[in-house]
């Protein structure tokens, strides 16, 4: 990932939800051509690496772009439980 993006993401405060709020059916990603999730995620959390999709939902900005662009319905998406997730101090 872009080093500068890493530094940018470091400005954020998160309270991770122990139960992941995004679950991926990565078998479906193998058939996916465009993999738009890797393009739209503003935190760069979707990475195509060694022939598979790697995703980590800590650091999620909760914008919902991934679930909207996913062409194979492979992303099971919900908000983190109340009080968890990203906390914008200067939203």
């Amino acid at each position, binding site marked *: 990932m*872009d080093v*500068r*993006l890493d*530094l*940018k*993401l470091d*400005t*954020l405060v998160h309270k991770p939800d122990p139960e992941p709020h995004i679950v991926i059916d990565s078998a479906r990603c193998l058939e996916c051509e*465009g993999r*738009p999730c*890797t*393009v*739209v*995620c*503003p*935190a*760069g959390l979707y990475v195509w690496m060694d022939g598979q999709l790697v995703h980590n939902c800590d650091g999620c*900005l*909760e*914008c*919902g*772009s991934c*679930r*909207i*662009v996913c062409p194979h319905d492979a992303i099971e998406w*919900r*908000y*983190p*439980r*109340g*009080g968890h*997730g*990203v*906390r*914008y*101090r*200067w*939203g």
Partner: protein
Amino acid sequence: VAEHVHDCVVVGAGPAGSAAALQMAHDGLDVVLVERGERPGEKNVMSGILFTDTLAELIPDFEDRAPVQRRITSGYAMHYLTADAVVTLPTLREYREPTRPPYYTVFRSEFDAWFAEEAVKAEAELFTATLVEDLLWEEGRVAGVQTVRGDLRARVVIGADGVNSTVAERSGLRAPPTPAEVSLIVREVLDLPAAVIEDRFVLRPGEGILNLFIGLVSGDDGRQGVYYTELYTNRDSLSLTSEVPLETLQRCGVPAYEVMAARERHPYIARLIAGSKLREYQAHLIPWGGVDELADLYGDGVLLAGDAGKFTTEDGVGSWPAMASGQAAARTVKEACERGDFSREALSAYVGYLDEVGMVETQRQARREWATQPKRRRALDRRPEQIAALARRYFQRWRAEKGEYPRSLWGQAYHTLIKPLAPWYVRGSLGLVTWIDTLRWRRKRRG
């Protein structure tokens, strides 16, 4: 003992939800406002400025109390960006008392928390850190919401839970948006001392300016799409946003964070933000294009307001339509409570209340703008380059080689800017003028 049934549960303590809760609490209804953040506003990102028309109605003395950053009375500047140039269109700076409620830059973490607190003072009940996971149903109508902390029963549920609206999707009123119906905002709040901001943007303390930039996202294989960058002045920071339709990002294949990074590197923007330090990096989706049918906004026991109901103006302003729709939803619930009827037919009164606050027309305009955009896309994509070319020609016309340009300046403007986008009657009348102008230009060049 039967569970308590509230008059209304409002999901989401943003501008729409808090406006609705405040209005209903004023009217003496029993209202609960449910927010998933620990504090209202901490899940939101302000990607624009706050228009205060509805706020001034709800809280007449808000100017003395609301946490705002700078008042945007003194400036609005629009720019077209190309890779190595910027064309600044006429800038409006007004130095007089505004006749309509002014607008402000705000931080939603401050503003939403304050606004929700106003609703609480009016005796609405606020539950924070509470995620609404699903709706409660009873005899085919929405009867409340399910949360981790238990169920909340209500006569009406107002979904003011934003673009990824659980209420809209679970009630079946709306499907999740498509990539063509949302834009991704990436925003950076950049620390810069107030005095530097005031010097750099020609402002006095308390005054603010907003800069709008229109540029292009370009993919490796030449695919392009228009997107917007905005630069706002806060008290001692700047907000730099990039706003790209998801569909454009997907088509061009440029990562969202790359679009933002490219903006920071643009020679002009780099100078405007020079010396600043990143305070926070943010992202948020905004809907655009309105709803297909106003009937998608209400159902049995449920109403949608704000981004959940895709209330934005044609150019994507969302906070004020959110408040206006929240206010209309509140009036609808009040009428329904008076009549004791919470069916879809009774709640269709929402359309009338929306019309009262101008939101029916706003929805219609947003839809029209959205629906015609694909047809104009090629023309819009070429616009920044063309405007830069026109500006270069205008400012350097005394250096033009004889015979360098096949068309007069007016002819160039007409063919690149007006003709591709104007309706037929404008093309017809201006086309004739252009034709005569071109003949004169050719004669002059020969002579």
